[in-house]
């Protein structure tokens, strides 16, 4: 799950994916931009999304998102909330589970 704080207009799903691919292209070149990344869900209100990537590409994706600084001349940052190999694990945080 990723969250990005922003100032003005919000990107839609396609622009979000373009942002991710641009970040990969800057850090890892054409090889990075060709990494198959899928945006599974995207919420425009909270600007958070769930991305899927092949496990060998996790390091490249995470480092590229960390180093992305600007979106349409505005500063922005990606915050990674959770990573897991299972989609179901992203639905709840087991630390805050109330039994």
């Amino acid at each position, binding site marked *: 799950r990723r969250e990005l704080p922003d100032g003005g207009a919000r990107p839609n799903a396609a622009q979000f994916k373009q942002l991710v691919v641009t970040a*990969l*292209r*800057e*850090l*890892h*070149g*054409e*090889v*990075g931009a060709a990494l198959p990344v899928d945006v599974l869900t995207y919420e425009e209100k909270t600007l958070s999304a769930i991305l899927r990537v092949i496990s060998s590409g996790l390091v490249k994706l995470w*480092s590229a998102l960390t180093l992305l600084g600007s979106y349409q001349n505005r500063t922005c940052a990606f915050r990674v909330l959770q990573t897991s190999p299972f989609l179901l694990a992203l639905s709840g945080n087991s630390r805050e589970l109330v039994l």
Partner: protein
Amino acid sequence: MVRFKNRYVLCEVLSDDPRCRQCIEERAVGLAVRDAIGRVHGDYGLACCSISFTVKYLNAYTGTVLLRCRKDSYRLLCSALPFVRHLESRNQRYPCALNTLHVGGTIRTCQKFLIQYNRRQLLMLLQNCTNEEERQCIQKSLLSCSLTEEQSQSGDEEDDDGTE
């Protein structure tokens, strides 16, 4: 033993344009290769490969280039070499292609390979040449190159000037 290990990549510059030979220089080739690595592997790849990157040897007559890089990043370099399309120098761009001949750990192995490769190229040129004068020229350089190793390099240069 802890030491920095390097890989030496031997490549050949192929070009249709005969004027491209004059602009084969160390700086031009180095810049073209770095630019290609930056495009293909991004900032990370460019920084990774540039740690110990130099053009060690260049022969403009035969178009032979010897590049050096770290052992950890030689795969990035080798995968980016096919993306070198132009050589630029003195505001002139010539289309060219880089062919990888050999990857070795030391300059000595690359030199040994280059000597054998040049010998094989001379023999192939002898079979393919049509002109009688060229034939005699090549035969003379072949005979002279079987004596010592230094003469084989100069015999190769002579032969290339003759066939161009």
